[in-house]
Structure formats: C-alpha cells, structure tokens
C-alpha cells in the first residue's frame, strides 16, 4: 500500500469533508435539508480549523 504524507491542513480538510457528508445524510430527513446541513457542518469545521490555526499562531508568537 502506498504511503501518504498529508499536512495538518489536508488531513483536517479531508476529515471535515467525509464527516460532514455522513452527518448530513444521517441527521436530516429530506435531500435538500441534508445538503444544507452537510455544507453547514463543513463550513463550521473549516471555520474552526482556520480559527484554531490563527489562535495557535498568535499564541505561539
């Protein structure tokens, strides 16, 4: 099996993507609601990712 080296951002991005897809599918009842919720989750994941990234950068000095 080939080895994969992902950066922190790439790994977090993929984690956010797949988790959002599953959360969208299992949480809501109509397809439209699923797409909206999945996109929302993905957006919040990215927001948290960038937010925490900046907090760590600022905190680290």
């Amino acid at each position, binding site marked *: 099996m080939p080895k994969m080296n*992902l950066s*922190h951002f790439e790994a977090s991005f993929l984690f956010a993507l797949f988790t959002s897809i599953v959360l969208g599918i299992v949480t809501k009842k109509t397809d439209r609601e699923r797409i909206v919720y999945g996109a929302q989750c993905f957006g919040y994941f990215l927001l948290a990712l960038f937010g925490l990234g900046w907090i760590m950068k600022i905190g680290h000095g």
Partner: protein
Amino acid sequence: MSKEKKPKEPMPPLKQWLHVVAVGWLIPGGGHLLLGRRGRGALLALSVVAMFVLGLMMRGALFQPQTGDLLTTIIYCGGFLGNLASGILYLLSVWLGYSQPDVAGHVHDYGTKFLVAAGLLNVLAMVDAFEIAAGKKE
C-alpha cells in the same frame, strides 16, 4: 409549566431491523443499500471507506484491547471498538496484515484517528439504517 412525558415507543421486532444493522456493520452503507436507499448508501460507503483507506495509507495503527489504568483502558478498548465498527474493512486489514504498530509522528497519528473515525461514522450509518428499517425515518 408542566412537562408532559411522552410515552416510550415500543422496540420494533428484532427481525425487522437486525439483518439491516448487521449488513450495515459488515459492509459500510450496506444497510441503506439493502433498504433501497442507493444514493445515501453509496455516499456513506464512499465516506467510510475513504476515511479508512486514508488512515491505512497514513500508516495509522489499529488498536488492540488493553487494560491497565483507567485512561489506558478507555483509549485502547474504545479505540478497538471504534476500529471494529468498520466491519469488513477492519477484518480484512487484520487478516491481510495491514495492522501496524503505533509509531511517532503527526501523519501516523492522523492515520490512527482516521481509522477510528471511519468506524464511528459507520456507527452513525448503522443507527440511521436502524431508524429506516424500524419505520421511524423515511
């Protein structure tokens, strides 16, 4: 204000949902496919399989149950259950020798988390398949 207690719904008969949940565990998304929800089943399968394969490719470790102090027990037994929830993906990885020891490094660490997360996403898919099979959800 008085809160009215909802009467507890009776558990649906076992034979109505057990095979769906079992197939959903063994083959990620399989429960949905069995119930005719092809699109959702395919997307769930894609997500769980992709997470698991990425975890393996990042050389993540598969947990073996270990006991000791509380934290060790929670991490190793919980991690093992999380891995096991991936069904055939976990079984094949162990049988074909893809199980690897835990090594230091952020990529391996992400890999280990991806492997456990794939199992946990499959648990969500199994619960959803149960609700559909039990008639609680469309």
